[in-house]
């Protein structure tokens, strides 16, 4: 299948995720983040956070609602059955705490074919309720045998 590179630069509707304390705890428990700042409000306050703070990789939770429609976009036409998550980068800024509202915007940054495989690169930029950037993600998906 030929890829339509005219879609490079396409942006998607922003998605706002409201961060709950119990969701941070659930995520921290699942990935083994036992630092009390991810579980206990007093420990978080003592460490200088506004409230219980999310582990850095919680970015995948609050950006999922913005990433989903991009990856599923029929105009891009990713064959999900043949898709692999190839690589991932995050750059972190302001910490994310319980009570924050994080808005994520996604853009298709690149798509290309190389050696029979298709590469789709998305960038997500997440900001908190004060406009401070919390994380910037580069998501590279590979479709085999495209």
């Amino acid at each position, binding site marked *: 299948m030929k890829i339509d590179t005219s879609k490079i630069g396409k942006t998607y509707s922003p998605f706002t995720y409201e961060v709950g304390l119990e969701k941070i705890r659930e995520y921290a428990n699942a*990935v083994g983040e036992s*630092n009390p700042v991810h579980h206990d409000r007093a420990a978080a306050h003592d460490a200088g956070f506004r409230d219980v703070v999310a582990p850095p990789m919680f970015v995948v939770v609050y950006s999922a609602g913005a990433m989903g429609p991009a990856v599923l976009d029929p105009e891009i036409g990713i064959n999900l059955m043949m898709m692999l998550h190839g690589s991932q980068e995050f750059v972190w800024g302001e910490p994310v705490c319980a009570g924050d509202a994080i808005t994520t915007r996604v853009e298709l940054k690149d798509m290309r074919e190389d050696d029979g495989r298709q590469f789709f690169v998305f960038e997500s930029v997440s900001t908190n309720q004060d406009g401070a950037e919390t994380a910037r993600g580069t998501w590279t998906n590979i479709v085999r045998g495209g």
Partner: protein
Amino acid sequence: MNAGDDLPQLDVTPDKYLPHRYAGASGDFNPIHIDPEFAKAVGLPGNILHGLYAMAQVARFASGAAGGDPRRLKRLSVQFRDIGVPEQEITVSGTVKEVRDGTAVIDTVATQGDTRIIRNAEAEIAV
């Protein structure tokens, strides 16, 4: 922390039901992670770990090397390669590549036995 230093290794064994808990925590319910029969039907050995769970272990390793303060993890870049599976120990190891201007760059890999489930991982931590 100096260039060439080996960092404290992180070992973790995801139990049989970890992919289910991670699915609930992350919202990623792709059946290849939680349904062994579906996974086998698409050519996998069984249900497999979420790549982003493995990346979270590398993040935990890197912030641990920075003294456990999540604010000190500034950047993490990984390549997903071979699949990870539950009920087998993951080992995350790494070395300091360079230190400049209060930031250490560390090279990291996550393995299960001889399988490298994450490679070419590079983290930047404030030191």
